[in-house]
């Protein structure tokens, strides 16, 4: 059960957040997270709980890495 879907935080209240997944908004508990989140952050949702944040910066880094993987440059 590794399925975890990325979503965008819409609002936060206590240990819960409203998170948007491609047009659908769901309530997600944020207790497992290590850091505070706010509207605009991205999280990975697993079974109704956020297990980590992911940033656009990380996504871009990954894209760059994949683009350069071929030549063995990391």
């Amino acid at each position, binding site marked *: 059960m*590794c399925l975890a879907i990325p979503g965008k935080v819409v609002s936060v209240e206590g240990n819960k957040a409203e998170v948007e997944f491609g047009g659908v908004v769901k309530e997600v508990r944020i207790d497992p997270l290590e850091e505070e989140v706010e509207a605009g952050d991205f999280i990975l949702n697993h*079974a109704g*709980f956020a297990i980590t944040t992911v940033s656009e910066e990380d996504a871009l880094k990954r894209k760059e890495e994949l683009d350069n*993987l071929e030549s063995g440059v990391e």
Partner: protein
Amino acid sequence: MKALEFRGRKRTKELLSQIEREIPERRVKVMHVCGTHESTICRYGLREALPENLELVQGPGCPVCVTPTERVDEAVELSKKDGVIVATFGDMTRVPGSSESLVADGKNVRIVESIEDVVKMETDKEVVFFGVGFETTASTYAPVLLEDHEGFSFLSSVRRIPPAINFLLEECGADVDGFIAPGHVSVITGSEAYREVVDRHGKPVVVGGFEPLDVLSSVLKLIRSIKGEGKLVNDYSRAVDEKGNENAQRLIERAFKVKDSSWRGLGDIPDSGLELKNEENDVRKKFDLNIEKDKTRPEGCICEEIITGQSKPDDCKLFAGGKCDPRNPVGPCMVGSEGMCNVWYRYGGT
């Protein structure tokens, strides 16, 4: 979330060529341990696109599949008690027990998507949550288990992945060249959790994400590791770091204690299970359950060989002969949505 999708055609073609160029000539056997990885592989036809001498197998990465019959029997027994509702994730309701499975009638057995749904249930009855999963899901159970909830108990079928990988190498002599570690379990545990696999057994581990390009990248990096480069590689650094999610780890540690656990197909694995620390919620303390350990194996079912990566679904006569399918599953690999047989049935195997 387009930025988090890694699915380019050109990149795919290039990575595939790169893998083709770099893979050793001999047979290379790689194991992943996650049903979601298997879904990506099948959904995008990756096995067929990868070199023929690369054997990509799935290990015991389906929490539903590795739940032993006794646990299912306990859940079934509970569901028959007056004043009890058993709630669990969808595919647990079709896993065969020794004589029957949990039937989701919406009354005594309810399907939920999250343990949080159970907490929100409005009922006078005692709700037993049949919790399956690995470390990822344990991190969702822990916060709720640490809260005070009346009329709530937990039947645990939660396990840990790194001990299982070690066990496969030590006891089963799994002849794999390397592992792709499950990305989201690793979010919680951190990549260092696989250090023992690397140091003690000398097998490379690449922590992998779930986009198709993630999988291809992890395969390429694993091939490079097999050929001698760095042995423990984090290929999912946008979500995973070395130490993992320490907050989640603390929550798990407070709610659970590590115990030996029985895995369907593998038997008893030391320190591989998580049981409740707080006995108040433990269903075994609230109810008297007397279930015999079931040693029988359904005839013709080779789930155990599939879970340990020794066989594939089409090696199974029942699968190949159309005698085992999601409607009439013989073994758990066909029931769990993350079971290899189930994924192959849905996606045609490649």
